[in-house]
């Protein structure tokens, strides 16, 4: 063990950063330091120049660092020293980063005043005021804490996306995918909503709408204020409302059928985008145990049930009773939801019950029973939803929207890995995963007998899938949680794994013996 200590203390060895990398980190930290100064209300002569310098320094530092880290080396997998570096192996730097990020999220969600948010029409101060010029440039409005967050978030995806592009410059799939998340973040999540805000006037108003942020990830999409807002904004608003419904009920199933959930989770989604870029250095920290997998299945599906109940209750609460005024009444809506859930439940139980594990069946039956019971109770006059809609909404927003996706999901990157939210919490991932497991052309195939069980694939799976367990049996990987990032295939030293879309037939192929052995023995062992 003494050698371990030497490693950490020795300054000049390869497990540490190079001099240029240290300088580059310094430049980036200087940029962050300017933001911290702003936080403490230091008065800068020009906010726009100061902000430009701060963000410019952060970007320059990151780009310089990435160039030095990757361009000097040959193309190929470069995970050297990942488990020696403090930041990426739950060392001191990792913990400090985790705590700093977590604190930032707590302040962001619960104490924006501390960031300088002007309350009740007061002008912004501090950090948020520093972002006023940029916000005014884009939307014409002063900044909010969400604008500051959105800007930093987009910047993070862009600069760490650049780093990722260099790291995987030998891998076209990784490059295209990363280019895609960078584009969707910059255009759809950041610029378009700001420009849309410019269209708003006294007579026309659209809510903030990131078009790629689909319900149920965007759990507030069908809340009353948004729906009212959209409906009152005429055709454009109605179009957006319909798009929101089509996104989840039409576009999502079609694309997931064709390509698996990856089309969203690692090509489009903003949460996924941050995880794949800024979070890439932490992917190896995900828990691979079967216990974690079990926890994941229960938690993520519970969140899905929660969001379905919450949304149903919220929509129900603002609908009317009188069908002569509008066809969609409380009752029609409630029966539609119950009907849709019954169709999905019955369809899966009829056609796919063989593919469900025992706990999946129990869970499905249990949750279905709960939802139907609640709806029935309501119909028998207990009016459960009516009283609890607001409570449900605010607790979901607090527990899932803020604590889970933000504070834990991102703040804990350096501790639990970069996909904690996507794996354990995201209801959108649960829906997509449910479909991916049961009804999609996507799978990861393995290459005959070439697997040497080295474990690079499992180590670098950000979703905690024990990829090796499948690869060493020659079994396709068809897992709900797989976001199709392709890194298992990239890090495999023997060319064993490939992400593919192919026919549904034979997609799931449990085997216990690999190609290469006596053909009779293979037949004997693989017949089921």
């Amino acid at each position: 063990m003494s050698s371990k200590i030497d490693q950490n203390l020795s300054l000049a060895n390869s497990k540490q950063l190079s001099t240029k990398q240290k300088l580059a980190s310094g430049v980036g930290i200087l940029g962050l330091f300017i933001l911290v100064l702003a936080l403490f209300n230091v008065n800068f002569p020009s906010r726009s120049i100061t902000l430009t310098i701060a963000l410019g320094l952060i970007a320059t530092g990151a780009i310089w660092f990435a160039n030095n880290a990757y361009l000097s080396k040959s193309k190929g997998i470069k995970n050297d020293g990942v488990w020696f570096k403090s930041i990426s192996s739950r060392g001191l730097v990792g913990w400090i980063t985790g705590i700093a990020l977590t604190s930032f999220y707590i302040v962001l969600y619960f104490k924006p005043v501390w960031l300088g948010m002007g309350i009740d029409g007061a002008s912004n101060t501090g950090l948020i005021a520093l972002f006023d010029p940029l916000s005014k440039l884009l939307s014409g409005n002063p900044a909010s804490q969400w604008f500051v967050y959105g800007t930093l978030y987009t910047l993070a995806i862009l600069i760490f996306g650049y780093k990722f592009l260099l790291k995987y410059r030998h891998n076209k799939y990784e490059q295209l995918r990363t280019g895609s998340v960078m584009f969707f973040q910059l255009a759809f999540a950041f610029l378009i909503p700001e420009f849309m805000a410019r269209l708003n006037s006294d007579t026309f108003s659209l809510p903030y709408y990131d078009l790629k942020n689909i319900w149920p990830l965007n759990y507030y999409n069908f809340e009353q204020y948004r729906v009212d807002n959209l409906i009152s904004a005429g055709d454009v608003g109605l179009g957006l409302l319909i798009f929101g419904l089509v996104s989840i009920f039409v576009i999502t199933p079609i694309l997931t059928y064709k390509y698996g959930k990856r089309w969203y989770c690692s090509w489009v989604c903003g949460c996924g985008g941050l995880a794949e870029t800024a979070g890439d250095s932490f992917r190896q920290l995900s828990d691979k145990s079967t216990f974690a997998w079990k926890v994941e299945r229960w938690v993520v599906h519970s969140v899905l049930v929660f969001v379905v109940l919450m949304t149903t209750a919220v929509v129900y609460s603002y609908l009317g009773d009188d069908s002569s005024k509008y066809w969609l009444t409380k009752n029609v809506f409630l029966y539609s939801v119950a009907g849709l859930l019954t169709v999905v439940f019955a369809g899966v139980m009829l056609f796919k019950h063989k593919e469900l594990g025992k706990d999946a069946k129990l869970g499905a039956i249990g949750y279905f029973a709960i939802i139907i019971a609640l709806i029935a109770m309501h119909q028998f006059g207990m009016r459960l939803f009516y009283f609890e809609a607001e409570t449900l909404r605010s607790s979901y927003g607090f527990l899932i929207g803020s604590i889970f996706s933000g504070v834990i999901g991102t703040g804990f990157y350096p501790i639990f890995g970069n996909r904690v939210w996507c794996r354990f919490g995201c209801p959108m991932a649960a829906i997509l995963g449910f479909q991916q497991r049961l009804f999609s052309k996507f799978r990861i195939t393995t290459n005959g007998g070439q697997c040497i069980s080295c474990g690079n694939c499992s180590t670098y799976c950000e979703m905690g899938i024990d990829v090796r367990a499948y690869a060493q049996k020659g079994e396709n990987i068809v897992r709900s949680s797989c976001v199709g990032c392709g890194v298992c295939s990239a890090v495999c030293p023997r060319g064993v794994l490939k992400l593919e879309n192919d026919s549904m037939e034979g997609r799931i192929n449990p085997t216990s013996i690999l190609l290469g052995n006596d053909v009779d023995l293979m037949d004997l062992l693989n017949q089921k």
Partner: protein
Amino acid sequence: MEHIVIIGNGISGVTAARHIRKLSDKKITIVSDETDYFFSRTALMYIYMGHMKFEHTQPYENHFWKKNRIDLKKGRVKTVETASKTLHFENNETLLYDKLIIATGSKPNKFGWPGQDLKGAQGLYSKQDLDTLEEMAPDNKACQRAVIVGGGLIGIELAEMLNTRQIPVTFLVRETSFWNGVLPKGESEMINRHIKSHHIDLRLGTNLKAIKDDGSGRVKSVIIEETGEEIPCTVVGLTAGVTPNIDFLKPSNIEIDKGVLVNRNLETNIKDIYAIGDCAQQREAIGQRRTIEAVWYTGRMMGEVLAQTICGNTMNYNPGHWFNSAKFLDIEYQTYGWVYSEKNKPDYEHHFHWKHDDDTKCITIAFHKDTNAFLGINTFGIRMKHEVFDRWLTEKRDVDYVINHLREANFDPEFFKRFEKDILENYRNTLQNA
């Protein structure tokens, strides 16, 4: 209940144990002195490089063994007493078996070089070898140069490992070109260039004469046979192949040669004793395969087969078409069927060779010059499908068919650049010029 004892918890022994458990309720004990739990030896390099931690190299969680009632015993077997079916351990413990599986793997070759047992001279095979390397070469301060002796797959892995810690490496290769006893010329030379591009001091056609002592029993330098040059270094990697790890069997009446001699059922000359994996030696070669195969997947396959025999379904070890893979720094290599180097090539074997301009991708297809039958392919930097080549070999396709259908065999990730057209064009041009 019948007690199956397996010596060695590598891939061979563990596979045998797993399959015996699937097929039966026999009592199973795995004996090992190396580690508490099975790990993937092939991944040792990634621990030193910082890609993984040791725990990541363990394919099964620690609770797996108890759950599957596979007993693990830590200890080193000193002798096997076949008459009384008893294992004697170095700490004088004993263990009785009904059936014994010897799966003790290999140890690095040492060819009697002066100084080969000095501190700092080591192979890279076991977990202990890795620990020694971590101690002797933690960084480029403690180890200012390492010399690697032997240009094979482990040698180049060791070079890559040391390179990640910026330890300068001199790589002594006996052959005139890297691994050219196995690889055809074009491939071997491409790898030479690739090694040098990683700033590794590759010395071809160079032998080790002696390793010198610094006076305290540690490595000080090596002397080159051909030139007498002395290269100061503190670590010497001995990677000139491996040999079966069976010294403990010499006093027993189990018949051994280089390895434990076994028949096609993997039985030794003594009833109820079997040998599998790196340490087993076939009495007669199977096809073109070597009698001792120190390859990951052959160990696994022998374990799969032997489990059948032990559980009552007596079965020959009858491996399918030869295949293998490796990675040379950044270049992945796969092979299916037989492609021989110029040194070992039979007369009838002809090659079609294609190399990409970037000098990191190439393929060599071997075929019979008279019948055009496809014999095998080596592929560098392009992933290919095992299943497809296995099928083509079984179907006895000819070289034209293979080249025209190469697209079906591609296994590169989506959106990767494809080279089938280029290869086909090249093939046609070669034919016209031939």
